[in-house]
C-alpha cells in the first residue's frame, strides 16, 4: 500500500480545497493548478488525488457534477460546498498555526 500519513492527506485536502475556492474544476485541472502555482514544487499523485476527492465528496466538503472541459471533453467537475468552505477555513488556520510554530522553533534554534 502507498504510504498515506495523516499529514500528507491533511495537506492534500487543504491544497485541493484551496484550489477549488476559485471555482469548480476537474481532477486533472487541480493537479495542474497546484503544480503551476507552487512553481513545480508540489506534485499531486493521481494515486492519492482521486481517492482523496471521493473521500471529500463522501464527507460533504465538495460536490461533483459532470461537465464539459475547455476542450469539449466530458469531465467530472468538483465544487466547494458550504461545509467545505468551513473546513477550508479550519485547515488554513491549522496550517498557519503549524507553520508559525515550526518557524518559531527554527528561529529559536538560531
Amino acid at each position: 500500500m502507498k504510504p498515506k500519513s495523516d499529514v500528507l492527506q491533511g495537506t492534500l485536502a487543504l491544497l485541493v480545497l484551496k484550489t477549488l475556492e476559485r471555482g469548480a474544476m476537474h481532477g486533472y485541472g487541480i493537479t495542474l493548478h497546484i503544480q503551476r502555482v507552487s512553481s513545480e514544487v508540489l506534485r499531486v499523485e493521481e494515486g492519492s488525488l482521486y481517492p482523496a476527492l471521493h473521500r471529500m465528496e463522501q464527507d460533504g466538503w465538495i460536490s461533483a457534477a459532470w461537465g464539459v472541459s475547455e476542450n469539449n471533453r466530458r469531465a467530472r467537475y468538483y465544487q466547494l460546498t458550504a461545509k467545505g468552505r468551513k473546513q477550508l477555513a479550519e485547515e488554513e488556520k491549522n496550517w498557519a498555526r503549524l507553520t508559525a510554530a515550526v518557524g518559531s522553533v527554527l528561529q529559536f534554534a538560531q
Partner: protein
Amino acid sequence: MSLLSRLAGLLKIRRLERDVEEELRAHLEMRAQDNVAAGMSPQEARYDAQRRFGNSTLLKEDTRAMDIVGWIETTGQDLRYAARMLRRSPGFTIVAILTLALGVGANTAIFSIVNAVLLHSLPYPDPDRLVRIFFNEPGVGLRDVRFSKPELDDLLTRAGVFEDVSPIYEGSENLTGVKQPERIDGVNGSFSYFSMLGVIPQIGRLFGPQDFAPGFAPLAVISDGLWRRAYGADPNVLGRTIRIDGDPFTIIGVLPRGFRHPGPTTSGDAEVFCPFGFSADPFPPPMRGTRILKSGIGRLKPGVTLKQAQARLTTMAAELRHDFPTDYPPQAQWTIEIQPLQETLVGKVRPMLLVLLGAVILIVFIVSLNIANLLLARASGRQQEMAVRLALGASRGRLVRQMLTESMLLSLIGGAAGIATAAGTLGFILRYVPSNLPRLNEVRIDWVVLAFALLISILTGLVFGLAPALHSAKVALYAAIREGSVGSGYGTKTGRLRDVLIVSELAFAVILMVGAGLLLRTLRDLLQENPGFSPTQVVTANTWLGVPNDPKADPYLGIPGKAAFDRELLRRMKAIPGVELAAITSALPITNSNPNAVGGLAMEGLAIQDRPVESSQDLRAERIRISPDYFKVLQATLLRGRSFTEGDENGKQPVAIIDESTARKYWPDREPLGRQVRFGKDPTQPWITIVGIIKDIKNEGLDIDGVPHIFVSVYQDPSKQVSVALRTSLPANLLEPQIRHEIQSIDPGLPVFNVVSMNDILDRSLASRRFSADLVGAFAGLAVLLASIGIYGLLAYMVGQRSREIGLRLALGAQRADVLRLVMGRGVVLAGLGIAAGMIFSASTASTMASLLYGVRPHDPAVFLVAPLLLLIVALLASYIPAWRATKVDPIAALREA
C-alpha cells in the same frame, strides 16, 4: 449518511464504477493531450500519462473504496467469495458452524442467567439506595442477630442516613377461606414497606403510613400469582376477607405481576403482605433488649454513599453500646452493618455463576482454536492462490480483509445459529437450573445478552480468523510461487503458529479439567458425607398450625392442646398401611424446615447451670422439638443416655438431648449428661435436664458443620411447625393423599405441603452443586476431546508434510523407534508446554473457587496431579497414531516422490 441513502447507494454501484472509470480516462486523455502539446509523440504521451497513474486497477479500487458504496460493494464481493469458499468444503463448514453454534449457544444461555441475576439492577426505583441491614455480634462470632423496636427507631431517627427502614418478617402462613387450605409465604413489614420499594399496585391500593397502627392493621396486599390462583383474577377481590393463620385481613390491593419480595422466603415467592407496627399487641412492649425483629431493609437518603452510611452506623452502634451497657454486653461488640440489597440477594450464587461463565468462555475459545487449526491447514493449501493474487498486485491488507471476511462470515453464521438455539431452548435449559437460584424468573434474552453473544461471535471469529489471515498475507511471494506445489516440509512459520494454537488449547483444557475436578470431588465428598442418619425409606410431610394474632382464635393454645394434636396425628400416621414408624419434628434435617430459620439459622440464646450469667450472651443453640420415635425413624445413633419417651410430657421434669457439637462446645471437659440448660433469659422458665447425647445430624445442609443442636420433647415444648417423618417402603407420591386426608380429618383448615422422600431432600440440597459440577465436567470432557483432536490433527499434518524427510532418515539408517520418538516427542513437548501453562494459571486462580468447595482444598494435590496426567495420557494417545503412521513411511516411495 442515512441507512436509506446507503441502500439507495447499493443500487448505484454500477454507475459509480462507470463514473470512476470515465473520470480517470478523462484525466489520462487530458494529460496525454498536454504531453503532445509539449512535444511528445502520441505514444510516448500516453505511456507517460499511464506511468503517472501507476497501477490503474488499484487506483480505481482505492478511489471506489472511498465511496461507501464502493466499500459495501467490495465487502459484498468478499462475502460472495467467502460463501463460495465455504460451500466448496461443506464438511468443514458444517462442523465449524455446529461447534460454533453450540459454543455461542452455551455462552448465550449462561450469560442470559448471569445478566439477569448479577448484572441487572433490582427492579425497584433507585435500586442502588436499597440496603439490607444486619446486626452483628462479632465478639461472640454471631452475624445477623435479631433486633428490637427501639433499635429500629434508632435507625430511622438517630442515624440520619436512611430515608426509610422496614423490618421484614418473612414466614410460613396458613391461608384458609379458599378452596384448599394452602401454606404460603408471607411478609410482614412496616407500613412504609411498599413506599420504600416504590411499588405501584395493579388494582386497589397499598398500605402506607396513613394506615399506621402500633400493633397491626388488618389489611392485606396479595401477589398477582395468588390473585389469579385463588380468586381467578377477579377485579372485585378488593374488600374481601382473607384468613391468614386464622386471623381475618381485608384485601386492599393486588401487586403488579413482576413484583417480588427482595429477600429470602421459605420456598417460593411471598404472596401475602401485611403491615405491622411491631410495638403493641401481638408484639411484646418495645424494650431495647426485647429483640424480636429478624431482618431489615432500608433506603438510604439521596446523596448518602454506602461508605458514609456505614461509618455513621458504626459510630451510632458505639454510642448505643456506651449509653446502654446492660443491653449491649461489651464482649459481644454489637454493631450494625449494611450491604447493597442486590449483593445480599445474589452474592451467594455469584462464584458459581462466574465459574460457569468462565467455563463456557473457555469452551468457545477452545472451539475457535480448533477451527483456527483447520483454517490454517486450509490456508496452507491456499498459499498459491494468495501468492498469485499478490503477484497480480493485490495488497496484503486486501488479502487479510478477504480472509477475515471469510472467518467472520463463518463465526456470524455460527453465532446466529447459537443465539437461535439458545433462544429456542432457554426455557428447557432453565428447567435444569437449580430453582433456588434467585431472580430466575427475570432471565430472558435481551439486547445486552444479544450484544454479548455478538461480541463472543466476533471475538471467536477474530481468534480463529486472524492467525490464518495474517499467515497467508505474510507468505513470502517468491517462496510460495517457487515451492507452492510440492509440500516441501513443515514450514516454520505455519508450524510455530499452529504450535501456539495447540499449546493454548491444551492450557485451556487443563484449566477446565482442574475446575471440574475440584467441583466433582466436592460433590463426591458431599454424597459420601454421613448425614448422621439414614435417609432411605423415609417420607416427610409438613403442616403449619398457624399463629393467630388473636390468642382466642388459636385451637392449639398451650402445651396440653398441642400435645393432644400431636398424639392424634402420630396415631393416624402409624395407622396408614405401609408406615412402620412415625415421628414429629419442628425442623427436618438438611433443609431445616423451621420457618424461623429462613435464609439461615434460628439460633436461640441459652443459659447453662453452673455458668456465670454474664457469659450467657454468647451461648446459643438451634432448638428442635421432636416426638419420642424421631431418632428411630431417622436411625440416628444415640451415643449415651436415653431417648425421649411418651412419659416426657407436660408437668414432668423437662428433658433434652444434645448432639456431639453441643457437647463439645459447651462441656468440652465435663460429662453433659444430667446437667441443665434453659432457653432465653427468663429466670422463671424451668431448667431442662440433659438425658442423652446423639451423633451429629446435618440439619442445615450436608456442607454445614458444627452447629450446636438441642432436642427437646414436643410434648413439653410445643411447636407450630409440624414436620412428619415416616419410616416406610412406600414412595412419597403414593402416601401423599393419605397423609393429607389424615391431617385434614383432624383439622380441615390445615395445609399439607412438601410431601417428599428424605432422599429427595438430600438430592435437592445438592442440586446447584450437581448442576455446576456436571456442567463444568461436561465442558472439561469436551475440551479434552477437542484438544486431542487438535493435537492429532497437528501431528498428522506434520507427518504428511515431512514424509519425504522421514523417508530420507529411514533410508539413511534411522530406526523406526527414532521416528516414533521424533513425532511423539513433538506431541509431548507441546502438550507439556500447554499443560504447564494451564497449571500455572489454575494454581494462581484456584482460590477464587474456595467458596464453591467443601472438603477439598482449592489446591487439592490429587486434582492438580490427576488432571494434567490424564490430559498428558490423552495427548500421548492422540500423538501415537500419527507417529505410528510415520514409522510406516516407505523410504523408497518417499524418495521417489521427491
